[in-house]
């Protein structure tokens, strides 16, 4: 088997983005038959080697986005329209067998919960070998050797012990590393990571972040890093995409979005964080700023009739309740979907 078989590489323009997502719409059908929009009009492009941080709270559609890109939505989820092009391949139209070749090989996904994403009764080295064997025609020996090499890339010590361990014998941080090893085992060009550090303590979190940082340089990896914690994106992501109720509300270079956000939601979200430790005693035990109200969740959101953040927005205007804002380009790289910036457009 030749890597890249089945894909028309001759049509792949080296200047084109690695991943190009256009107008992605995803909906879920509830058991009651009710259909709801989980993602609407999501567009973005990713250049080779670039890391995109997807920032969103529960129900914003960030995990739906990860699943939709790889066409791994649950049975009641449907991609209504849109296009996803990855390395010149149209992922939404690819035949299932073509898609299987791409997933795990060129495009890898790291799931949220390391303890659930690993098979509990198979040794670690074997689980990594399975991924390699699925994509490469190698003998058993060679697969085992390659699995070991990959493990050595993420564990500097104890590689052998870990290779022969079952997942329950490992700590949370070690399991996260195994998932990373699995993801890089076929040297993908893009990794989609859905809250890969959510269940880890801060020290382990930092270790995993710096591991990703190293791997990025080493393999020229592109990454989509999905998280609810803006602090994890600081100094890590090149660009940030902020989701609210299934809509992209703001996108731009990470340093701009995180330090001078332009959408009222991003601004409110960043204000909610506990004060930086060195400042925390100025307002010790005082109320933290909050965003009033509850997230609707994208599931309750209907399309097009108003800005979905309007009910919670401190800067709402009459127009916000009348129709949904479009993305306003604030600079060549920074955009926000908010009527208050419409004048800046022209």
């Amino acid at each position, binding site marked *: 088997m030749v890597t890249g078989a089945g894909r028309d590489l001759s049509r792949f323009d080296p200047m084109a983005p690695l991943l190009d997502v256009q107008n992605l719409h995803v909906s879920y059908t509830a058991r009651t038959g009710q259909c709801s929009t989980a993602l609407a009009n999501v567009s973005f492009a990713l250049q080779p080697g670039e890391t995109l941080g997807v920032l969103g709270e529960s129900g914003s559609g960030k995990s739906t986005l990860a699943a939709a890109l790889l066409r791994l939505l649950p049975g009641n989820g449907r991609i209504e329209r849109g296009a996803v092009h990855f390395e010149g391949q149209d992922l939404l139209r690819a035949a299932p067998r073509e898609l299987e070749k791409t997933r795990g090989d060129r495009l890898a996904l790291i799931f949220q919960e390391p303890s659930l994403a690993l098979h509990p009764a198979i040794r670690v080295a074997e689980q990594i070998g399975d991924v390699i064997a699925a994509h490469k025609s190698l003998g058993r020996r060679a697969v085992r050797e390659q699995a070991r090499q990959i493990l050595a890339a993420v564990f500097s010590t104890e590689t052998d012990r870990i290779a022969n361990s079952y997942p329950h014998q490992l700590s949370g941080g070690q399991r996260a590393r195994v998932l990373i090893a699995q993801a890089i085992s076929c040297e993908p060009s893009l990794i989609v990571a859905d809250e890969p550090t959510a269940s880890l303590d801060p020290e*382990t979190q930092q270790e995993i972040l710096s591991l990703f940082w190293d791997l990025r340089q080493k393999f020229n990896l592109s990454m989509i890093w999905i998280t609810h*914690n803006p602090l994890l994106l600081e100094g890590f992501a090149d660009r940030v995409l902020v989701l609210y109720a299934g809509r992209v509300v703001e996108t731009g270079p990470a340093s701009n979005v995180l330090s001078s956000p332009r959408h009222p939601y991003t601004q409110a*979200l960043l204000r909610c964080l506990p004060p930086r430790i060195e400042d925390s*005693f100025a307002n010790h035990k005082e109320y*933290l700023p909050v965003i009033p109200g509850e997230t609707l969740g994208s599931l309750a959101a209907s399309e097009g009739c108003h800005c979905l953040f309007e009910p919670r927005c401190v800067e709402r205007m009459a127009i916000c309740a009348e129709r949904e804002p479009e993305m306003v380009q604030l600079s060549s790289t920074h955009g926000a979907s908010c009527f208050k910036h419409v004048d800046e457009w022209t």
Partner: protein
Amino acid sequence: MREVLALAGVTFSIFSRTTLAVVGPSGSGKSTLASCLACLEPVSSGKIWFAQTEVTAMDAGQQCAIRPSIQMVFQDPASSLNPRMSALELVSEPLKIQDRFDKRERSDRAYDLLERVGLPREKAAQRPDEFSGGQRQRIAIARALVLEPKLVILDEALSALDCSVQAQVANLLMDLQASLGLTYLFITHDLAMAAHLADEIAVMERGRIVETGAARSVVDSPQHAVTRRLLLAAPGVRNSALEPQAV
């Protein structure tokens, strides 16, 4: 069977109506400590005093009697709340188990608490899966408070929540502490939140308390390597916090 020492020589006290934050890496014994205080885990040696009585000297029956005054809120409300019970049933159940009041009084008290934690009366009949993560944690807090405890152990109670929801629940906890005179043991690995909410901070590692003191002095002039490491790992912290302090 091999015995493992989960806690070794841990000594501390919490004063009434204050908050002690216990921070430390995973596996440092924070949750074991919580279980011991809540009489859920027997101690091999050492003494625990609660409100002038020695808990460790009590028999099982006596411990049962003081348990209502020590309540816990866990990290993940999705798994700590029975999915088949309504919010109202969940909050009134502790009263039922303790056989306090008649049914009507129990419901009244549960309604009151649900309102107090910010859940409207008309949602009381809904089950946990119909609530958001933040609302579920509010239910768990109401359930912990219905027995009018003195000490509430918050075991990573904010960790599973989104940032904006974390702030809402943290504000609620401060409100309740002031109005009900609660004492909190706040277990967390979020040092920024610990610094904001706590009067005192204890830092644990491998079953020992390696540093303890007023929250401010622990953060401003960390003495132990573990504390420094935790400060360094806290996301978004500028390293200036770790530079040697001018004396």
